[in-house]
């Protein structure tokens, strides 16, 4: 490193910085929020190159008065809307309860999806029940929407004897093949190329089922994301690639994933893939975008990337305290509101719901979750007693357990016996 050349301007390194830190007042008034109904809805047969602008706007359906407007309005019947609302509220109630269970020492870890319930619930409703989901760790709403038993989810969270994964996985790393829900990985974004591969296989077989996958905006930086996008565009894979832009990746704001320069939906443009940017707190917009993308996939028009513009209203996980790095006021200042409240307001605005029913439903859901929890705790909680026989630790590494694992299993049991435990 010699001294910089004097006849050229000195360079400087730009390091992104979020607008608000602890102590700052959060003010999102300059976040551009296009009016509901303003984004056009192309025909699903249009080529991706003809609607690149959709990567730079926000598909929104619910307006400020709670009405559903514009070409993306999915015109769901009230029964479906109430089902959607209920699943979102149940997801939130479940999260509350399990967060508390972790705080009570009943398990090691938990992750909420508060504020992001629309992203998973509305998508799950728009997909066919046998479409295959490759989620990240924050799409518990899919399982709940698809009717996976709450007790089983809790059993997994407690690693107890009812845990279908036999206590092998960290809490919330569900796997539910019969609910079209792929085994969640701790390594970010690995599910992205897997989803593309599943979709390619389905297409190669002349099947009708499509795949959908989710990752956070922070995770888009991983190489897996890019590999997935490349495979998806090359083979026109029937897959929906969801990026949940909840503004934060643990303590790092979205600028560290590239949000200062463009949107995440724009990534799609880079590969010639259809890209939509959606108000992720508007359940109807999420539903409509998913339905549209699914239709494209089902008709061999290829993949769609959907950026869900939303906000992580709480900490990253039970291990995280967001007040250490962001303004405490952010969640409330967030300009796109709360997805549950917005859907509720819509149902009320169209005369299909009221505050009293909502309050009653909240109470009922809390009760339902509590009942499930009691039921689950009958199977034990983490650390209070061992819920799986020791030898299960050695099973399932391979389909057939080879000699070295059998030997290790026997050795362990013999050692424990010898030591008198």
């Amino acid at each position, binding site marked *: 490193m010699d001294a910089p050349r004097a006849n050229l301007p000195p360079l400087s390194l730009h390091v992104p910085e979020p607008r608000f830190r602890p102590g700052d007042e959060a003010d999102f008034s300059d976040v551009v929020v296009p009016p509901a109904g303003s984004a056009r809805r192309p025909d699903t047969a249009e080529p991706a190159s003809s609607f690149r602008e959709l990567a730079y706007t926000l598909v929104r359906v619910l307006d400020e008065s709670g009405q559903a407007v514009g070409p993306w309005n999915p015109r769901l019947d009230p029964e479906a809307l109430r089902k959607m609302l209920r699943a979102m509220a149940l997801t939130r109630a479940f999260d509350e309860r399990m967060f508390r269970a972790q705080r009570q020492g009943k398990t090691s870890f938990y992750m909420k999806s508060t504020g992001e319930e629309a992203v998973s619930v509305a998508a799950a409703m728009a997909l066919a029940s046998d479409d*295959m989901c*490759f989620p990240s760790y924050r799409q518990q709403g899919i399982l709940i929407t698809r009717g996976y038993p709450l007790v089983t989810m809790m059993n997994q969270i407690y690693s107890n004897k009812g845990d*279908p*994964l*036999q206590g*092998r*996985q960290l809490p919330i*790393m569900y*796997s*539910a*093949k019969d609910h079209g829900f*792929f*085994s969640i*990985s*701790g*390594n970010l974004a*690995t599910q*992205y*190329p*897997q*989803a*593309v*591969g*599943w*979709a*390619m*296989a*389905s297409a*190669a*077989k002349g099947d009708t089922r499509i*795949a959908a996958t989710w990752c956070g905006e922070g995770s888009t930086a991983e*190489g*897996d994301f*890019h*590999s*997935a996008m*490349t*495979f998806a565009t*090359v083979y026109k894979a029937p897959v929906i690639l969801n990026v949940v832009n909840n503004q934060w990746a643990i303590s790092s704001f979205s600028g560290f994933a590239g949000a200062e320069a463009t949107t995440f939906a724009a990534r799609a443009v880079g590969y010639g893939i259809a890209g939509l940017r959606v108000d992720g707190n508007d359940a109807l917009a999420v539903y409509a975008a998913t339905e549209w993308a699914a239709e494209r996939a089902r008709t061999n028009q290829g993949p769609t990337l959907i950026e869900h513009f939303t906000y992580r209203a709480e900490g990253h996980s039970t291990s995280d305290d967001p007040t250490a790095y962001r303004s405490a006021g952010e969640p409330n200042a967030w300009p796109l509101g709360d997805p549950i409240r917005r859907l509720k307001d819509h149902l009320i605005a169209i005369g299909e719901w009221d505050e009293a029913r909502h309050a009653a439903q909240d109470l009922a859901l809390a009760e339902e979750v509590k009942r499930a929890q009691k039921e689950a705790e009958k199977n034990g909680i983490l650390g209070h007693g061992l819920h799986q026989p020791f030898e299960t630790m050695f099973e*399932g*590494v*391979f*389909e057939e357990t*080879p*000699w*070295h694992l059998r030997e290790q299993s026997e050795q362990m049991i013999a050692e424990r016996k010898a030591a008198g435990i």
Partner: protein
Amino acid sequence: MTRMNMIQAINSAMDVMMERDPNVVVMGEDVGYFGGVFRATAGLQAKYGKTRAFDTPITEIGIVGVAIGMGAYGLRPVPEIQFADYIYPALDQLVSEAARLRYRSNGDFTAPITVRSPYGGGIFGGQTHSQSPEGIFTHVSGIKTVIPSTPYDAKGLLIAAIEDNDPVLFLEPKRIYNGPFHGHYDRPAKTWADHPAAEVPAGHYRVELGKAATVRSGEAVTILCYGTMVHVVANTIEELGVDAEIIDLRTLVPLDIEAIEASVKKTGRCMIVHEATRTSGFGAELSALVQERCFYHLEAPIERVTGFDTPYPHSLEWAYFPGPVRIGEALKKLLKD
């Protein structure tokens, strides 16, 4: 029976499996139309179509990640990594995903994929076309590692790997694709023409995973090896007139520990030969296992003859390669007392 070199045998294994099972697909860089830079997949696209034998983007993360997804769907993908030196970008998908999927989902999902990759040196390929990374994978719980040394075994093992419901890394010793290599780089290259294990059945057969082959019975010393080294070792002991028992491991994980133990207990001496770098190579595990299980039978320290702990050099390739000189000197030492 047909005469096949190792490439043809590998090609035949995929052909047989694609014929029998519509869920078998092959994929990888240059694997489709062209049939692979080593021609291992030649003709498969023409025969089975583009959706069953296809070229891929150049991203090893993607090749393995997509194969895992296909496997979860119900296919049996056989992805090729063009050179084993290029498997590292895919390591996370192999270690954290393929190898863990069955366990972490308690059998809900599996990854029945067979990752094929040419490995090893002796072809003046330089640092990035010569590596032997098998040791890394043997440390990873949940993946099997298979290395053939003859056309017959290559086909039978590859069929067994493709039929296996667990992820298998199938490493192909590229130095012996066209003929067994006896370690003398300065003598004319041999072909498989007169090798008995180049008689290969045209149809389906399996060489079971997890079973070693005793290539030569002997009393003086047990030599554990695999891949190219099987031939180098066999030739060297013949030249030296040593009565060695040569065990071709064929599968590293799961290992055929019974064959190893029985042989070492018989001979009392053990030598391990591999091309991979020495430190923490699979030879270390073999050495540890042998001394743990045959300690009281050992008459001399177990010897390892391996690649050196340097990158694979280009011009000094033949000094690096664990050839007859190094094997011979190590044998002398091992047998001297």
